[in-house]
């Protein structure tokens, strides 16, 4: 019983830190509010879709930027999608990089784009790790017989 309480506190603190450090924003709260008894895995499901989608987009971006003649409109289209999905789940830092990325696309600035690609990959892997840790914590709490703290 004690450990459940400890885990719950750990979870609350962890989520708070993610918000504090800007990894997540208010939109993530919205996601959590949409989870209920009839859809108990909603957050995990939608975030998993985000992971899948992001991997695909990162591949497409890498390919597009490797071309001899870069099609900036195509690159921009991918970044636009990435910006959209990261915004929908509250992945704040990823979204911010996407905004800068789009500006470079508009300027047709190759170096800027390559730099942003690295940055967005980095931010994505960071938030992915954080979210996976978060889900792990939640699983532990449930396995220990506890319930998830209300958001």
């Amino acid at each position, binding site marked *: 019983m004690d450990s459940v309480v400890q885990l719950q506190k750990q979870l609350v603190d962890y989520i708070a830190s993610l918000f504090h450090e800007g990894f997540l924003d208010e939109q993530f709260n*919205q996601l959590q*509010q949409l989870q209920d008894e009839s859809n108990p895995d909603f957050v995990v499901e939608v975030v998993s*879709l985000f992971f*899948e989608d992001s991997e695909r987009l990162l591949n497409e971006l890498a390919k597009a930027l490797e071309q001899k003649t870069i099609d900036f409109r195509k690159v921009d289209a991918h970044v636009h999608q990435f910006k959209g999905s990261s915004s929908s789940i509250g992945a704040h830092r990823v979204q911010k990089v996407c905004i800068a990325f789009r500006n470079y696309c508009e300027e047709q600035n190759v170096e800027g784009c390559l730099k942003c690609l690295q940055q967005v990959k980095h931010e994505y892997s960071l938030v992915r790790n954080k979210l996976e840790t978060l889900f792990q914590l939640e699983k532990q709490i449930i396995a220990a017989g506890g319930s998830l703290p209300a958001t």
Partner: protein
Amino acid sequence: MERNVFVSRRRIDGFDVSPSDSAEAHVLAVDDSLVDRKFIEQLLKISSFKVTAVDSGRRALQFLGLDEEKSSSVGFDGLKVDLIITDYCMPGMTGYELLKKIKESSNFREIPVVIMSSENVIARIDRCLEEGAEDFFVKPVKLSDVKRLKDYMMREVRFGTTNSGGTNKRKLQESCDLTSSEPSISSLSSSSSDSPSRSPISPSSAPSSIPTPLDSPVRRLKMTNTGGLI
């Protein structure tokens, strides 16, 4: 005698009783993004809507039974669509193009359409509203936005889109259907849909003879986004 074709259970209920129950209302959501589709679907479900989510304007039209050229006959039964919510930026057919197609169709023009977009561009918002969209949500869409959707459905009921005419219906009859006594759906062919008839019946167009309440979402939206100008 009740006609199944345009009087759904919900509308009978909504017409006679307090219109607070949208449990039967069916929303068609259109978005090419997998993540957003999942998200909007959940937003709608948790707000007690039935949802069908599709990934393109094309599929939305197919679902409605609205093929490109040929006019749809009575048989679009099954699940009636009470509202369409669509993303603006989509490959192939944009949300705006989908909106136009729906408003040009005599069978479907009365279905309220809401546009979503990540870009908060006034010109884009205005264009959509002028084309007959009920509202424009800036992404990411919030639960409070979705809760507003119920207003559009209720308003449709109040304005008498069921059988006996509200002013809404009479206008429609005058402009494009002089023969049938049924106001909307079923027997009208799409070739008889003329663009001028769109604006008079759309509650969202400002200069119509149907009074739009001052605090309607469309007005509110316009005021918020254009700084007071309508």
